[in-house]
């Protein structure tokens, strides 16, 4: 942007600590179209002046040298589609954190002004995408979660397509008599509303249902998915705007539970088998068809067991209560006993648990099952129980509350397999081909597990977390997804009970509809919701290195046959990781680019060696490290005045050219501070910090070869609440740099 107006605030102590005339003179020197000083820039009258200057076109953009970009956001809310506005944090990063009147403090302020000016000169307005957007929501899976999603999306006014693998809708709960109560008084089963829901959706004008059908292929992007279905009537193609994956779960394979008697007696059955039995003619002992007198339920059959499913399936306690209540309703004389390790009935499910416990003939006992023996008549041996050691429960039917296994496909694993198979044929050397064959063998189990069949470079299905659930990694954002516009719901999403699956379906439908709305506006979805800038690829200079297509956490980029990235802008989440990955620096956002940051680095003053003042660049993640620094400043903590901060979207957007530029300019050290990586990563773009560490690790090796100290570059992880730590980190780094001595490249 050209013709920049600089607006300097002297309030909040800025005017007292700094020489304002020095800064206005600098603005002139930089070529600012105008420079105004205000004693309180955020006051409505001052903001009106800024707005007038922007609206009248007397300036092309405004640089507000005042407080942090995170402060006074309401006062300085200018439409990003119409105005280029930048902020320089004189208050938090200079006067609140550094001694007033000091020469270093003034130099710091001037540097920040130069850097802010340089950035603003390099950025421009975004042109919002204006694409034709399909409003249909595709729901894959027609069980409780999927049908609830379908109902919700339809009620929100969107056409819906439901694809169900089975011949009938309804999923695993379709035929059960009653559901666990979700309304007061929570003491008895509710009528199963699924059959009604199936009937309503089947006759709904805006809902198309494909039973006995699967997804053959999905290409495109949110708002523009092209879907091919395999249906009994042949191939059907349709368009969809967003997708809810509600493919549910399957019971854990009970044949692996021989120690609980499964397979050795016909009278040991699983909970889903009991549901089928109850729906198909009533409670019967499989061995002789007689009504059993005593039914024993064994909880955690395969769950919470490192040998089987390490997780708690979260549905079995609730499902067992439902089954016990169903049995007592039809057969008041039948006795039931539930053997549990911990009864898990959170919330008001506790009241239902109490009600079921109070029914005559209903026993609950804590214990570990040592074994199940017998054939027709069964003995369930318990240990570690209230009833005493060696307790044996008699039973003529044993029900294993088997855990649930998600009906998911691990898109990343499938892709690793596909790539390895390809490499095992096309690899350049026999060693490479052999290595690829090993990987292919290791990942062979994923072959043919595809569900969504996405035409994505990074794999045909949602990536999964541990245990195969494509869950969100974020507590605050349970619908966060690594494939934009595709939301998991129900028991495929995470272990959950029926009530939660229903809730989850409604929420996922809301997210799907929201994604369609955002696509129509050309806006990003979470976490940079509303951002209209999209990355521009200057493909003439692309070397097909594929780093961008590999590293995008959201599967935004496909590749053509040569490996050139193909942007699917509506999948993009604007993190900038592709921009950081690109060795040719050909990827830029309208308001964030390699060049913009590089120009900020160039704008920094670098003291001569004789001045004995090192210069340090700090690249700070704007979600965690920058707020932590702001809060530290708010509490008037101080840090080394040689540090110059540049906020970045994500550590993963760091392009190593910034490091190279810094060192070749004579900057003495570069520190990157970003979110935590590892299993419990806090990076909202998944791998940003990790990618930065890998890239910087490579740079450090190069430094060593150039006889430069690798300690000049450091990556630090910091959480949002560690504001007390960040000044110390900067100070310690400055001390290290001082000890190492000046960058030998200085002055070259």
């Amino acid at each position, binding site marked *: 942007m050209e013709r920049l107006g600089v607006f300097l605030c002297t309030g909040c102590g800025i005017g007292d600590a700094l020489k304002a005339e020095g800064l206005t003179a600098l603005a002139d020197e930089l070529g600012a179209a105008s420079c105004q000083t205000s004693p309180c820039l955020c006051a409505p009258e001052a903001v009106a002046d800024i707005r007038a200057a922007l609206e009248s076109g007397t300036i092309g953009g405004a640089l507000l040298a005042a407080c942090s970009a995170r402060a006074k956001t309401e006062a300085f809310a200018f439409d990003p589609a119409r105005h280029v506005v930048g902020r320089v944090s004189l208050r938090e990063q200079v006067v609140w954190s550094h001694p007033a009147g000091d020469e270093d403090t003034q130099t710091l302020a001037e540097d920040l002004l130069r850097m802010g000016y340089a950035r603003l000169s390099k950025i421009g307005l975004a042109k919002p995408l204006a694409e034709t957007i399909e409003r249909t929501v595709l729901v894959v899976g027609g069980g409780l979660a999927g049908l609830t999603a379908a109902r919700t999306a339809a009620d929100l006014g969107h056409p819906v397509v439901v694809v169900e693998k089975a011949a009938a809708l309804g999923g695993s709960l379709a035929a059960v008599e009653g559901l666990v109560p979700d309304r007061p008084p929570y003491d008895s089963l509710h009528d199963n509303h699924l059959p009604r829901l199936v009937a309503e959706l089947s006759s709904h004008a805006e809902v198309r249902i494909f039973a006995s059908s699967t997804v053959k292929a999905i290409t495109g992007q949110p708002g523009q998915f092209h879907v091919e279905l395999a249906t009994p009537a042949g191939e059907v193609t349709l368009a969809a705007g967003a997708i809810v994956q509600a493919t549910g779960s399957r019971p854990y394979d009970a044949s692996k539970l021989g120690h609980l008697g499964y397979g050795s007696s016909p009278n040991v059955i699983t909970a889903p088998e009991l549901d089928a039995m109850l729906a198909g003619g009533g409670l019967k002992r499989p061995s002789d068809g007689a009504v059993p007198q005593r039914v024993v339920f064994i909880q955690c059959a395969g769950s919470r067991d490192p040998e089987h499913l390490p997780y708690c399936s979260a549905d079995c306690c609730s499902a067992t209560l439902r089954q016990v209540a169903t049995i007592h309703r039809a057969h008041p004389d039948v006795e039931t006993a539930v053997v549990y390790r911990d009864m898990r009935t959170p919330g008001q499910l506790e009241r239902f648990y109490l009600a079921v416990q109070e029914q005559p003939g209903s026993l609950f006992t804590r214990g570990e099952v040592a074994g199940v023996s017998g054939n027709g008549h069964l003995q369930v041996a318990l240990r570690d129980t209230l009833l005493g050691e060696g307790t044996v429960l008699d039973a003529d039917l044993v029900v294993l509350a088997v855990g649930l296994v998600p009906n998911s496909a691990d898109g990343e694993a499938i892709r690793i397999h596909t790539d390895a198979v390809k490499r095992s044929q096309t690899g350049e050397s026999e060693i490479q081909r052999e290595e690829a064959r090993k990987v292919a063998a290791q990942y062979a189990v994923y072959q043919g597990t595809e569900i969504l069949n996405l035409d994505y470079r990074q794999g045909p299905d949602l990536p999964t977390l541990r245990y195969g659930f494509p869950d969100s990694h974020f*507590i605050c954002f349970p619908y966060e997804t690594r494939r934009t516009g595709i939301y998991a719901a129900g028991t495929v999403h995470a272990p959950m009970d029926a009530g939660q699956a229903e809730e989850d379906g409604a929420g996922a439908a809301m997210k799907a509809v929201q994604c369609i709305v955002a696509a129509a506006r050309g806006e990003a979805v979470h976490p940079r919701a509303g951002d209209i800038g999209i990355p521009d690829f200057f493909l003439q200079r692309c070397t097909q290195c594929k780093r961008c297509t590999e590293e995008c956490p959201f599967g935004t980029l496909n590749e053509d046959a040569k490996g050139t990235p193909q942007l699917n802008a509506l999948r993009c989440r604007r993190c900038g990781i592709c921009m950081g990955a690109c060795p040719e620096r050909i990827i830029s956002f309208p308001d964030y680019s390699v060049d913009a940051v590089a120009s900020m680095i160039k704008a920094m003053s670098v003291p001569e060696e004789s001045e004995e003042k090192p210069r340090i660049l700090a690249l700070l993640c704007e979600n965690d490290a920058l707020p932590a620094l702001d809060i530290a400043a708010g509490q008037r903590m101080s840090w080394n005045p040689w540090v110059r901060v540049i906020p970045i979207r994500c550590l993963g957007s760091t392009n190593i050219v910034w490091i190279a530029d810094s060192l070749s300019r004579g900057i003495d050290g570069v520190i990157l501070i970003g979110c935590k990586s590892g299993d419990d990563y806090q990076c909202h773009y998944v791998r940003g910090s990790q990618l930065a560490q890998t890239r910087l690790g490579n740079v450090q090796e190069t430094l060593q070869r150039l006889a430069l100290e690798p300690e000049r570059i450091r990556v630090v992880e910091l959480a949002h609440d560690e504001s007390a730590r960040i000044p110390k980190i900067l100070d310690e780094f400055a001390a290290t740099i001082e000890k190492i001595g000046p960058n030998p490249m200085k002055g070259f």
Partner: protein
Amino acid sequence: MTGQQSRPLLVVGAGIAGITSALEAAEAGREVVLVERDASIGGRVLRNHHYFPKLCPPSCGMEINTGRLERNPRVRVVTRARVTGCRERDGGYEVTVTHAPAYVNERCTACGACSGVCPAKVKDAFNLEMAEVPAIRLPHPNAWPKLFVLDRQACPDGCHACKDACTYDAIDLDAEERTETVQAGAVVIATGWDPYPIERLPELGGGLSPDVIANVHMERMAAPAGPTGGKILRPSDQQPPKRVAFVQCAGSRDVNHLAYCSAVCCLASLKQAIYVKEQLPDAEVTIYYIDRRTPGRNEEMLTKVAAMEGVHLIKGKVAKVEPRGRVLALRVEDVESGRIVHAEADLVVLATGMVPSLGAGAGLFGLSSDDDGFGVEKPGVAVAGVAHRPEDVAASVRDATGAAARACIAAGRRA
């Protein structure tokens, strides 16, 4: 979404559930008014040190949410306001919103000059009254909106030191309450919860010893911005405790107190056991429980904590906690062995449950509630978060997303 968009949704309560409902609806194209009683948003979650099971700070997600609010022109956030009137109108609700007097207005730059000269101290509400702060202050370091707040009733007679110190004309000591009318298409009630008061649990030592605290207090003690600067200390002598006992179901799953399970306390105590062990590796931590409720992948947290040296999980109902000199004596009915166990601790943490706070939902919007006070939805009025049912943060957010959908549907049909 299509259809008429003439009337906004009204979301009452800006904790994690209300913020989520407001944002999910606004990002789907709806106009939303989000009304919050406190001076800043974030409710109870921001008072947690870390979330389970990831042990990450809630302010991180809140940073993203406040960014979403700042970028979204369709949400209007109204803090320090209450819903005080409501009548059904044209299938929606005509709602009266009463704004508390704006003693500190939007001109405030959060420069802090006023705090420095304020002579009055008040109990710090953000820190659950475990510390004192000036009567005029930023509510907490992450406060959003970033405006100071004045507890006017704490001002000494005739004092106007803060007003004199403010160079931005941001303080009006004579400000008055004002009201506005909002025509809402539909409503989401997300008024949250209160901790069950430990004073009602004298048998567990609640209110009888400063060293018997609630889980919510432990969260503040562990937080760097908390009253102890993040140090876990025994309140009576400000020394680190050597033996910490967690009493599960303190008031929950108990018909004399709260009949339901509060759904979060098991995981909260496991998390807090980690806080203790990280700071005080030699401390002995004992968790007394009825059932260990760690559903789903949260099971990992149980496995991890149970394997920690110096952490003991004992199935048993704590029947009595008694201050005895400098220590606390516990009487535990150990179900495992059938015996009564006597134990001692330096610090007892009562894992108290969550009491729904339906607020305006019940009175003004005519919501019915269950026996425990959790709101039961009706057409046009959705309920989200712990005002709806006992649930953890992730479940509250799912619930709030669904509630946003239901409210949008209701508003669409009624508009």
